[in-house]
């Protein structure tokens, strides 16, 4: 006789899966990856490959020898972390630093919390900040983007637009004096400016964001509230004194703002569960970023802002509940 299965309802399931979500994020990152390879050449490929191989290895090794659970390298989460980590690094970073970054991301930020879904902080960002405070020189000398099509010229290193601005303003210069040194908006959009591999091209990042919105991997709440907060606050200061503050669009296009808003802050594991909570989360990141950019010691603050807000997620989850049916 046929043996039937008994289980509770529902008896059908949607075709969504963790794997699909993770590979969806990978697909969304492809334009950014291509742009960075275009601008930084072979070095970029080297960093990507190192980050991916090292992350997958650490994920496999820790799962096998320490946690002793089933292998999880196929679910794509380690791949996402690896690519995000690479996008957060300058392309000329020594290889062993990339490997240390991968170890910190997978081992310290993810697996020590219990693996996928249990980490409090975004693994790639933890690794970036770890590297930034450990190797400040290597992490802040960015090569100037030189499109592959220009041939393999000597790599010139330089500061990021935000760095130029911060140093300039601290030295008493005004924004209009600094403008010739800063990239134009078109350059910012296309990515012709100094920075980490994934921070350069706003266009590619936006493309990935639109793809993820369409696939319903992310919702609009976090990026929009974060960018809006940044625009409003930087707009206020710019309106008061345009000679000492950069305009909102400059803030949007430079540094890790878009990378953070689209790929890092929207990480499901480390962001709030409800839409209202996500709005608050985005607002907090935006505010902290502007505070760090304007008054902090670092020229860039997106990663710190996201990590700080990651820590508040359990609290936000407690405070911002979904609207219940039948409760007004």
């Amino acid at each position, binding site marked *: 006789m*046929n043996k*039937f299965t008994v289980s*509770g309802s*529902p008896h059908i399931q949607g075709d969504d*899966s963790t794997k699909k*979500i993770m590979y969806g994020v990978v697909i969304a990152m492809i334009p950014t990856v291509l742009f960075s390879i275009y601008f930084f050449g072979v070095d970029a490929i080297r960093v990507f490959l190192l980050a991916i191989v090292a992350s997958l290895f650490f994920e496999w090794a820790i799962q096998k020898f320490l946690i002793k659970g089933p292998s999880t390298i196929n679910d794509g989460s380690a791949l996402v972390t690896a690519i995000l980590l690479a996008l957060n690094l300058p392309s000329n970073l020594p290889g062993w630093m990339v490997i240390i970054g991968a170890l910190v991301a997978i081992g310290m930020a993810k697996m020590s919390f219990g693996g996928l*879904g249990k980490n409090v902080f975004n693994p790639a960002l933890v690794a970036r900040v770890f590297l930034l405070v450990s190797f400040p020189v290597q992490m802040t000398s960015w090569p100037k983007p030189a499109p592959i099509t220009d041939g393999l010229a000597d790599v010139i290193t330089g500061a990021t637009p935000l760095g130029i601005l911060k140093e300039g303003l601290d030295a008493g210069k005004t924004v209009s004096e600094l403008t010739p040194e800063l990239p134009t908006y078109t350059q910012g959009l296309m990515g012709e400016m100094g920075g980490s591999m994934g921070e350069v091209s706003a266009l590619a990042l936006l493309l990935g964001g639109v793809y993820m919105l369409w696939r319903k991997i992310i919702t609009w709440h976090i990026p929009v509230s974060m960018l809006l907060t940044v625009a409003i606050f930087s707009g206020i200061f710019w309106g008061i004194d345009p000679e000492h503050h950069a305009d909102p669009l400059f803030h949007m296009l430079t540094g890790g703002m878009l990378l953070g808003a689209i790929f890092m802050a929207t990480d499901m594991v480390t962001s709030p569960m409800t839409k209202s909570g996500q709005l608050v989360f985005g607002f907090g990141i935006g505010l902290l970023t502007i505070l760090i950019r304007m008054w902090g010691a670092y020229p860039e603050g997106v990663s710190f802002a996201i990590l700080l807000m990651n820590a508040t997620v359990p609290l936000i989850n407690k405070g911002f509940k*979904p609207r219940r049916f039948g*409760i007004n």
Partner: protein
Amino acid sequence: MGILRTFALGGIHPVENKLSANAPIETVPVPKQAIVPLGQNLGAPSKPIVAKGDMVKVGQLLAEAGGFISANIHSPVSGKVLKIDNAIDGTGYKRPAIFINVEGDEWDESIDTSADIVSEITLSSKEIIDKIKDAGIVGMGGATFPTHVKLMPPPGKTAEYLIINGVECEPYLTADHRLMLEKGQEIIIGTKLMMKALNVKKAFIGIENNKPDAINHIRELVKAHDDIEVQVLKVQYPQGGEKQLIKASVNREVPSGKLPIEVGCVVQNVGTAFAVYEAVQKNKPLIERVVTVTGKAVKRPSNLLARIGTPIAALIEMAEGLPENTGKIIGGGPMMGKAIISLEVTVVKGSSGILMMKKEESSRIVEGSCIRCSKCTYVCPMGLEPHLLSKAAKLGNYEMAEDEAIMDCMECGSCHYACPASIPLLDYLRLGKLKVGQIIRNRNNK
């Protein structure tokens, strides 16, 4: 057509798979033996009034209501009562049932078996309710709540709208759809009868826009009645839930833990409307119902009119047999239906469908770890956080589960459906509801 109405919170779009939508309703032959369970409705089981050896006719009372929330049961066949004994039900538990050996097909004289449609309403509100009560009608959508109880609002509450549920949001099921197409006129009269019973001035018939033929047909029929309106609703599961349907059609929210009458609404299924018509106008108690027999591997997905007490094996035979590789049989739809353990089970008042799933469809995907994507929260039609509730239930933190309103859960299964990690969220939620329900009962008894 503009923006279609639907409910506001959550919801999913499972693949519809309405395989039997074009299969006209066929009648299943009377079985050789009918097994009529005594507990066919929500609430108290019915009390048998026949004894072993009694001869019964079709439509004769077999068991009477065992309490206020209970319903009469009538004989679906004519013949001799073999015994009153335990019979296996869909879940494998054995519960009392009346076994009748069928002899001929002799109907009770009072039943009007002609095919004429009686549209004139002559009875008063109270008489209509009494007839519905006598006929043992329960909610035909699957919840099997006795209909006459719903038609008598508690003192101090009055109904404003009657909402007829023609949504049929469960995938695969088409029984209501076919009923609307084939028995539209009767459904309208049934609606009129219930409007009179409730003394309401307005009724809505809610139909999802994946059934354009039914919408057009019913629209045509209600042209003569300006107090009945067909409402086209955007396809979304679980729109057939009472609270969701009320929200979609009259934009009112039933408060948490309250009944629809709180916002002046009464919801009845189209199948119930048809049964009400038959009971009041034709004097025919609830002895048969339309059951969808379907599945991807089923040779002839069909809609079958079967007597209560017919073994489901006979229905599956009508659909040209149980497919070779059947791995799971479900009584009802795939979202809220129950897995059936054996083929000895018979059709009851609440059977809306029999769904046969292939082996490969029937097993669950292995549970992964929660990635906190909050999709369960987004799709929950009650605005709950299933990920949180399931964890609370898993860890035995029932106080937290209660605080987070686990009892509001209507078990629609949207959370489990949407979960990318395939966590059986609803299993955990049901477990939590069981335990929290016990705790609440103990507290109230003290």
